[in-house]
């Protein structure tokens, strides 16, 4: 009887997690990256760093009603290019592991004379806007571009 109760509670918990989106969305981080502790995540739900200073992180934000992928891609592009002065190098379609369509933007920016690369993937999944970001010095990001794209494509939302 006691076992049955525990199992029921566990099953209910797992179901809640899946159905109600209680679990955080996740990316499969590339090898060579170490996920940081919770207190070092900052505003991100997931954050990992490589030994040579490339950072990958995932941000999950509430999506207001009627906000489409185009809306967020335009907002992110405008923020980066027009407000931050980033140079947009490439914009291409992306697809998450669950089949959700997104956009991948690759930008460059100058910091103290050095060139940095910043990659951002935007997805809209149900009530969430998922923003996967990666960045670092261009020379260190370049050899990891494939791994970063793969990680961003491995994204799964917390819900169903």
């Amino acid at each position, binding site marked *: 009887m006691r076992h049955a109760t525990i199992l029921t509670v566990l099953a209910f918990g797992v179901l809640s997690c899946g159905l109600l989106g209680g679990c955080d969305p996740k990316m499969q981080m590339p090898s060579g990256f170490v996920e940081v502790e919770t207190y070092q995540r900052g505003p991100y739900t997931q954050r990992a760093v490589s030994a040579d200073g490339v950072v990958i992180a995932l941000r999950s934000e509430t999506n207001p009603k009627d906000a489409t992928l185009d809306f967020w891609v335009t907002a992110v592009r405008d923020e980066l290019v027009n407000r931050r*002065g980033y140079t947009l190098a490439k914009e291409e379609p992306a697809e998450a592991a669950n089949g959700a369509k997104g956009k991948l933007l690759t930008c460059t920016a100058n910091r103290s004379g050095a060139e940095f690369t910043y990659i951002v993937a935007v997805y809209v999944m149900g009530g969430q806007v998922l923003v996967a970001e990666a960045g670092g010095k261009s020379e260190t990001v370049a050899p990891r571009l494939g791994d970063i794209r793969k990680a961003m494509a491995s994204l799964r939302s917390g819900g169903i």
Partner: protein
Amino acid sequence: MQKLILGVLILIVAACPCGGCESPQAHYLTYRLGGRNVPNAPQSVPPPPEAPPMYNAASLATVARDAQEPTPLLTVVEPRKVVYTGQFCVAVGDVAVSIQATKALADKLGGYMLRMTTNTIVVRVPADKFDAAVTELNRMGTVLNKDISAQDVTDQYLDLELRLRNAKATQQKLLALLEKSQAVRDTLEIEKELQRITTEIERLEGQLNKLSHEVAYSMLTVLFNQTKNAPAETQVKLPFYWLGRIGLDELLSF
């Protein structure tokens, strides 16, 4: 009746200094103050006394050389010597690219780069291309601050030119004296003076060359800022807090 006549006379005398009997000094004062601060300033101000004309150093030297002959008055200098400088602060999307573009612009206009840092560049462009350079800089981004100045160095230029000519004339006289000199003591004295005047000539020539170059090539100092430093009123910020936190700064800071 007598009181009436007396009153009219007093009125005429009192009115006199206010207009009809104005003295030349009053006109001059009106001119000096631009006719604004002098009570009852006349509407028609006599033309200002002509400013003393600028004199050409060459003609001054001619005067010095031909001092014996009566010479016509000195000619007026033209054109004036003006040093133009400009300082700009421009918000751009890419600072490094803009710095390179400014350097290329200076080269294209026949100028050259003087100094360059990660966000500042100092260039010189030919004075007649100064306006073209300023126009191009305005197109590079949002001009946050602009300071263009023109310094008239005509007097300084003429003074140097005149001093140089005089020094050269003195040098010639000393050389002539040296040729005629017999006594060793005199020769030594003349040679010492000749050395001093030669040094002076070199110094003056250096100053004159420097000034001429500054007149011929205008200096432009440009400080570039990233676009995010542009005035806030030119940007619309969306009401989603997290949008302002995407990007490298937040991502790479632990």
